[in-house]
């Protein structure tokens, strides 16, 4: 019996199957509760479009979370970059310039965050707490009380060229290769499992943290453009729930918030879809937005509690 348990525990696939199964369960549940309205093609398309922004940003964030660090300014960063990118488009009328500037700015921003953490020897979490507030106020001061609207023909052009789908697919495949088929993902996971052991195996935390942030910066840049394409306007509440969505997506996708060896790149996409299904489904069932936020919070806490891998510092049940 104990042996069977150990085998199940060490099985790599069971843990990874749970998240897709939960997603499927939610879709069926909401379809039944809404008498099929939820599963209509039109609604599912909206879900995927919403989910893709979260999925893109969360896929990038996977690299950071794998190291056991938490960046809680992903939403604020995306909002600010989207605002700046929108301004750049309005000034230049160039889609190419908007996309390029968006990626470059996001990568620089993430690089600065990682460097601040390593140079000042402050935990990533604390740097990003400050950053979240800072970036969000900068964004609000740029936008002001008005909303920045983008021309409809540009948005339609981007949509008809399947920009969000292609962008997500390309970024996802690149991240998949980097995370699972090169040494980068492996090193990040080793560092996330035990940073000292990682350093003693020759992987410098400062270097790989920077790499992780830069890769996730590309995701933020792309996510910003996808936000513009999806909403066609930028206001002070743009991406306001994105940060929690990303965090929840990774956990729902089967990753540990403590990073380490249970990190995998599919978590972000599956989790992003689950989060979107959850948000959308609960609203469609008729639950007020305030309660939706509370339910999300409760799910998050429960998942973190049951999270399999815990760092050494935290008490374990074995004592």
């Amino acid at each position, binding site marked *: 019996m104990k042996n069977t348990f*150990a085998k199940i525990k*060490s099985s790599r696939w069971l843990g990874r199957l749970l998240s897709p199964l939960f997603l499927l369960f939610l879709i069926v549940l909401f379809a039944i509760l809404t008498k099929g309205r939820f599963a209509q093609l039109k609604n599912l398309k909206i879900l995927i479009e919403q989910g893709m922004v979260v999925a893109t940003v969360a896929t990038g964030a996977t690299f950071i979370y794998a190291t056991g660090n938490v960046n809680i300014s992903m939403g604020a960063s995306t909002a600010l970059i989207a605002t700046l990118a929108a301004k750049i488009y309005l000034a230049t009328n160039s889609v190419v310039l908007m996309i390029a500037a968006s990626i470059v700015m996001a990568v620089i921003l993430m690089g600065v965050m990682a460097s601040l953490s390593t140079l000042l020897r402050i935990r990533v979490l604390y740097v990003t707490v400050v950053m979240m507030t800072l970036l969000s106020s900068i964004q609000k001061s740029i936008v002001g009380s008005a909303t920045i609207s983008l021309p409809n023909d540009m948005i339609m052009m981007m949509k008809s060229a399947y920009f969000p789908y292609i962008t997500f697919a390309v970024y996802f495949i690149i991240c998949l*290769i980097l995370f699972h*088929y090169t040494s980068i993902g492996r090193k990040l996971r080793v560092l996330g499992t035990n940073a000292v052991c990682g350093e003693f*195996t020759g992987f410098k935390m400062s270097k790989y943290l920077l790499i992780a942030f830069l890769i996730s910066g590309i995701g933020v840049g792309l996510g910003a453009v996808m936000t513009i394409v999806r909403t066609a306007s930028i206001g002070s509440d743009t991406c306001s729930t994105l940060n929690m969505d990303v965090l929840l997506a990774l956990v729902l996708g089967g990753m540990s918030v403590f990073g380490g060896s249970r990190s995998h790149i599919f978590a972000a996409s599956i989790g992003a879809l689950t989060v979107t299904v959850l948000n959308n489904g609960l609203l469609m069932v008729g639950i007020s937005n305030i309660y939706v936020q509370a339910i999300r919070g409760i799910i998050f806490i429960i998942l973190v509690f049951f999270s399999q891998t815990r760092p*050494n510092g935290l008490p374990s049940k074995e004592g």
Partner: protein
Amino acid sequence: MTETKQVLLEVKDMCKNFGATVALNHVDLTLQAGEIRGLIGENGSGKSTVSSIAAGMQKATSGEMFYLGEPWSPNSMLEAQQKGICMIVQEKGTIPNITVAENIFLGHADMFKSGMFISMAKMIAEAQKILDDLGIEIKADEKTYKLDIEQCKLVEIAKAMFWKPKIFIVDETTTALSQKGRDLLYKLMHRLSAEGTGVMFISHDLDELIAQCDAVTVLRDGKIIGSLNRDEMEPGHMKQMMVGREVTDHYYRSDEDTYGEEVVLKADYLTTRRDLLCFNLELHKGEILGIGGLSECGMHTVGKALFGAANVIDGEIIKTGKKPVKITDPATAIVNGIAYTSKDRDNESLGLNSPIAENIASTGYEENKVLGPIISYKKEKNYVEKQIDSLSIKCNSEYQYVNTLSGGNKQKVVFGKWMGMDPDIMILDCPTRGIDIGVKVSMYQLIYEMKKQGKSIVLISEELPELIGMSDRILIMKDGAVVHEALRSEHPTEQQLVEYMI
């Protein structure tokens, strides 16, 4: 005092296991009122374990204790303290950001409650009285972080005194004290003993023990070896009792092979932030270099420094060869074929919350590449399985988590991780710590095979039989410097080497 003194503490048939490691093996011990009893033994012999159980720091696995005739099983140090058993620990036992007075009355601040509030002034005055009474020149309202380590120890002593202890345990405290502090402590110990308190004194300093104790009890490998009265105490005899285990060294190497002339790694006037000052060392091709000493002699820092993982202030580590390389960090060390296994295996050499495969594969990313930076899962699997097979790591599959393995198998995973990259130099810090004898033997064989292949090994160990059994050359360290060098051909004995350690 009458002839038959009152028995304060009686320990009966006590055992303590840390996982697979047996720290105490059916120990019986009594402490009488008014006696000063020394506890001696090598590192890991169990002397700190038995005293810390009595003082409520941890629980025994089995066995009984009686305190003043009553069954005794304290749940915390605070409880033991209130009942009159106080212990001064080896490590720093004060909290830096509060005042001296708050440290002295830590956990008991309620005594100074007047109404809702705690009267700081009263607490400070009371603390000052204790300090003055003991002749300790420290102000009670001082913040504790301003004190040096010796003063902190004195504060701990004062803290213990407030409780008018019936049993006073001093665990290797004197190493942190200057002569003045030591005299103060000795005087106090004798004063307490005259008042009927039992004192348990743990120290490595035999002269100190002989001068201060009424009797000493010797522990070895978690067992009581014997007790000596005042007139029987003699350093030579005491050392022999401490280390004189049955010689069962047939599982070590038995050859007299020597090693090459070529120096492969050297430390040049190495000074680290802690422990080492202008330290020199040369490691030769095909040599097993043993480094021994007491735990705090700096040998563990040497291991880290040779791997580029210590905080080096001055001097350098050079991997010699056609193109000499300066080892500045672990990454450089590894690229140049140097591997390191830490004494703190779980925290520094392993990812516990990850599968065996991930741990072992972590040294083989370069080797297992197939196309540019792309790593082949198949090659990686072979890389891992090769190590699991050759080291016969007991596991369900290579995906089993490391934290479910026994100590010996964990160590095999660490070895597997490094053997995979086929290092030229292996730095092993206490490689057989907490490992059962079966795995130990296979580790020794592995070390010897590596030597035969012309690899060089630094073997840092707290166990002298292991050093004597395996090394071509042994360095004994004390206070961060090498105090003795012995060659295999000289057949050094434990007794000889201990002389230099203490």
